[in-house]
């Protein structure tokens, strides 16, 4: 592999990692602050993608579709939180796993009922539907660069909120000691609803912007779910910084592992996770 291609692979790894971060950030927030394991997280990603597909077909405009889809996703998060998760905060993790597993079944089948089993696509939206020439026979989609930019901006925003706002302090405190925060008079109920909705919105948004890059097909949420969990566990639960670096690590490992050690490629992320947990059982940035 010469330098030029090494550079391109670096780019590939970065782009994949950044998108993973967007999805994982929602998961780590939900888990870190609320203590809820949400197995249906991948289904949210899928819903974001299908929503944007549906609305782009309706409006003929990708950006408008995203604008409309985001509030829908937030509303869905609210409904799920109020309906189902309300009773699970103080309960065993097992119940959360089971309930969200049941949710996956319901959501996946609902998707099939509404949108059917065919494969769909969302065309890459203007003005990003060009490609730039990287090497002699390789181009790179400008849209991917755009996605990377969005992920970086959002990463910055999230980081800024967590580090430099009052809400951020409450979130960080809540991750450490929920009861104390409640004791300080902060309405934890509303905080949780907010966090969950934001988490769902982030993931659904990831699905929306990723839609032009992948194919919209049943079961697309399942594969991203496990990778996401690995990212969160490596990075440390509740840590946005951990989700970021965990995602980058996984992104790079998957990309380079694919070409350097193809026979182990499918297991590489689990091997990394096992290694991290051996050395730091609570994740890198816990």
């Amino acid at each position, binding site marked *: *592999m*010469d330098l030029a*291609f090494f550079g*391109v*692979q670096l780019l*590939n*790894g970065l*782009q*994949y990692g950044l998108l993973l971060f967007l999805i994982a950030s929602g998961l780590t927030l939900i888990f870190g602050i609320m203590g809820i394991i949400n197995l249906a997280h991948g289904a949210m990603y899928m819903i974001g993608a299908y929503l944007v597909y549906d609305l782009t077909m309706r409006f003929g405009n990708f950006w408008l579709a995203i604008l409309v889809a985001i509030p829908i996703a937030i509303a869905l998060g609210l409904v799920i939180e109020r309906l189902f998760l309300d009773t699970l905060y103080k309960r065993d993790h097992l119940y959360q796993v089971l309930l969200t597993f049941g949710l996956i079944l319901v959501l*996946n*089948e609902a998707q*099939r009922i509404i949108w*059917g*089993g*065919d*494969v*769909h*696509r969302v*065309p*890459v939206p203007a003005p990003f539907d060009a*490609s730039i*020439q990287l*090497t*002699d*026979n*390789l*181009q*790179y*989609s400008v849209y991917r660069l755009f996605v990377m930019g969005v992920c970086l901006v959002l990463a910055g925003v999230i980081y800024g909120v967590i580090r430099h706002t009052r809400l951020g302090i409450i979130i960080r405190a809540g991750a450490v000691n929920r009861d104390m925060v409640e004791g300080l008079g902060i309405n934890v109920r509303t905080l949780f609803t907010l966090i969950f909705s934001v988490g769902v919105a982030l993931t659904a948004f990831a699905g929306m912007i990723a839609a032009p*890059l*992948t*194919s*919209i*097909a*049943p*079961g*697309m949420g399942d*594969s991203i779910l496990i990778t996401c969990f690995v990212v969160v566990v490596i990075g440390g639960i509740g840590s946005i910084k951990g989700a970021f670096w965990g995602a980058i690590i996984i992104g790079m490992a*998957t*990309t*380079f592992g*694919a*070409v350097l050690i*193809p026979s182990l*490629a*499918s297991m590489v992320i689990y091997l990394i996770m096992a290694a991290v947990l051996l050395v730091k059982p609570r994740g890198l940035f816990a």
Partner: protein
Amino acid sequence: MKNFKKTTLVAALGTTLTLSAMGLSANEDPVKLGLMLPYSGTYTALGEAITNGLKLAIEQEGGQLGGRDVEYVELDSEANPSKAPQNMSRLVNGDNVDFVIGPVHSGVAMGMLRVAKQTGAITIIPNAGLGAATNELCMPNVFRTSFSMWQVSYPMGKVAYEQGHRNIVTITWDYAGGKEDLAGFEEAFTAEGGDIVQQILVPFPSTEFQSYLTQIASLQPDAVYTFFAGGGGVSFVRDYVAAGLNERIPLLGSGFLTDGNLAALGDAGEGVMTTLHYAETLENDANRSFVAAYEDAYGEAPDTYAVQGYDTGMMLAQALNVLGGDTSDRDRLIDVLANVQLASPRGPMSFSDSHHPIQNVYLREIRDGKHEVVSIAAENLEVPDDACQM
């Protein structure tokens, strides 16, 4: 027959009486078709297309097979191989179907074959392409109306060489079906004198192709041959085009890359060449009427999966018409099925000794969002199936 622990005279007598009574009215009972297809999960579209094709064929026969009504028992296989044996057993032993039609997924087929062997149930495979089903694991009661991975990819090897390519990179998912497909192509291509620069195996079912596309670009082959299907096929082709690779490195593949995916591919599919035993633009009478009827009934163009379901229905119809609806003599039924010859939408179709289709394989190119037939890549291709001892 299985042994009953408690076989009193009464039970035996009662059973015999019931059976003979049933035998008398055999021709009035509906023909029960057990469909073991995926109605949930990634392969839903295929399961539905096959079911649609099958039902269309039977409706064209007036909803009857050999003068008997048809009853469908649809069981969701979930494309889950671990449940395959029990699901098949449910159809055969629980629902007592006359024919089992399925599956889509080769792993599920393996599980089904196990039960087919034990029960002797007549099984018609309308998709699963694993070679072993009609080769090492062949049995008289198992038929296939679809293809084998080898059968579809082998002709492309010669085509690729004749197009002037000498160095090719092959890429697919790291799973049995993909590897079988590549093996067929590589066998033909290397026999002609070509060279496989690299075989890339992508973890199944990942659709993150960027790193592999970069790798392909660095290898600079004459062409790329690939097998992907469903959503993965769409992703790969679109990513391939977005990376600009198609300008210098033509993309070849077996038809699953694009079949059923035309709408989702959009412009990206233009110029992609694939080999498959069907193309919706085939110019023969059977196909013209089939495409029209299918679009009329279901509002969308058919694909190869629909044809496979349709041909299964036609096969059953022909066989049962010959027998006058009498399925009581199993050996005769199997014999008749094996001798079915169809003027299928895919062209002339008959069955080899291993109960696998002898059919044409076409070279297709996507132009204007349709599979245009460039040539017949292999005519009446019969799969050798040397290991089949029937």
